[in-house]
């Protein structure tokens, strides 16, 4: 792990070139990285679960790492970090995406929803409740990604049959193989949300 501690040079760099809104006139430079081993950061705003956060990140930081390592929102899991497992699924402007395959700096001005933002106070989202009722997980490593993906799957209307759910939930792997119960949980929640 590289250190997140900014040194004086990067602070100056960020304060100069990168503090303003990033546009064509400001290319955030990485040259400091080559010289010091610590890259320049850029000040960004991320709106997560309705709360706006200001943070300084290197351009290469993924949305997943920004959520987990910087905002301490560790409900979103890092599985493969290559877009294959789906554990890092979050909603961006209500669409499900894999947060490991996008840069935090690219997701400014978007409304990001993570598993932490799903419940209404103490009241679980119907799909969270259905996962518990249907015993739709074992180790839990994939579960927050499954639930975020399932919420979108229901919203998209891809829950007409078990086969349709399986196809549209195929971007989320479960190595405990709870698939049968996951499909049941999505079906349950889809019915409940339709009512």
């Amino acid at each position, binding site marked *: 792990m590289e250190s997140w501690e900014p040194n004086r040079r990067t602070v100056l760099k960020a304060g100069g070139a990168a503090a303003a809104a990033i*546009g*064509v006139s400001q290319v955030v430079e*990485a040259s400091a990285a080559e010289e010091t081993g610590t890259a320049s950061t850029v000040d960004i705003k991320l709106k997560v679960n309705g709360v706006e956060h200001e943070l300084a990140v290197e351009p*290469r930081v*993924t949305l997943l790492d920004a959520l987990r390592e910087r905002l301490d929102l560790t409900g979103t899991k890092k599985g493969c970090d290559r*877009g294959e497992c789906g554990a890092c699924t979050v909603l961006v402007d209500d669409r*499900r995406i*894999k947060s490991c395959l996008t*840069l935090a700096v690219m997701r400014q001005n978007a409304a990001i929803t993570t598993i932490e933002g799903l419940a209404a106070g103490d009241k679980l989202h119907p799909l969270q409740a259905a996962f518990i009722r249907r015993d739709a997980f074992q180790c839990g490593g994939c579960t927050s990604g499954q639930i975020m993906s399932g919420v979108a799957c229901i919203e998209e209307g891809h829950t007409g049959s078990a086969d349709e759910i399986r196809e549209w939930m195929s*971007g989320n792997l479960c190595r405990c193989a709870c698939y049968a119960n996951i499909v049941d949980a999505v079906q349950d929640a889809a019915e409940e949300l339709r009512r």
Partner: protein
Amino acid sequence: MKAFDYASPSTVADAVRLVGERAGAGFIAGGTDLLNLMKDGARAHDRIVDINALPLGDVVQTGGVIRIGALARMTDVAAHPAVRRALPVVSQALLASASPQVRNMAAIGGNILQRTRCGYFRDAGSPCNKRVPGSGCPALEGQNRGHAVLGGSDHCIAVHPSDFAVALLALDAVVLTQGPSGSRRIPMGEFHLLPGATPDRETALAHGELVVGVEVPLTPMAAKSAYLKLRDRTTFEFAVVAVAAALDLRGNVVRDLRLTFGGIATKPWRSLEAEAALRGKPITDATLTAAGQALVAGAVARAGNAFKVDLVQRALAGHLRELGGVR
């Protein structure tokens, strides 16, 4: 992932300039392929130009064509009513690709530029002529089950992985670009290059030249088109063999057709020979057999991928029977 500069311009001209002026610069749109390659050390850029603020996301039907902006997402193109109605092979190929999350992210310009899934290419610790010219190709004698039987060379047999590009090729699509030297229209058949002795050169694009969209002509054949994708598992997987077909039938006689293939070749593959075996003829066991044989006449099979030579012929025959309504 190595550190890089970052910029997010709001005009195509600025984006083209920001990449064109620096040898190590690259564009990012969806990022779904690029970031994996950068994490794996298979690709490095010292400047990333984010093009997501550019006005390139529209799908419009105009003057006998459907023009799809480079930033249109796979999900939206696949679901677009005009695409579904007039270009079914495009919608089907997109829906057979990746996962719902990735389809929400990935832009269609990047889709046709995605890099091969060859494990040696993606492993920075392996030699690879595509990644490091002259370093060798372990796939020739190594793990080559996923590799090409058509279009390969002694330097590279990596398969082009895009389903969407195979569908576009079947519909005579044109790639629209804007670069340091102005704008160009590149026919899909000339966009991807054979590996030959320079597998590191994959497309006709110059450095700094940006794909701004694709244009697909609306024809009766395009409206009667379909995609067949065979995979190692039911879904969320790259093609072992894929067939895109567009048919203009008069009764049982093939007036005109396009046959393109994925999974078997180093670039999206059109077989003029297979088309010629069917044009002007009825769809019968004999003509389908002749078309399949014409398709694989130049095939070079390796230890792991020889099965594709048979499989693609059966896929072609089954797919054309289905599309042509011939049992």
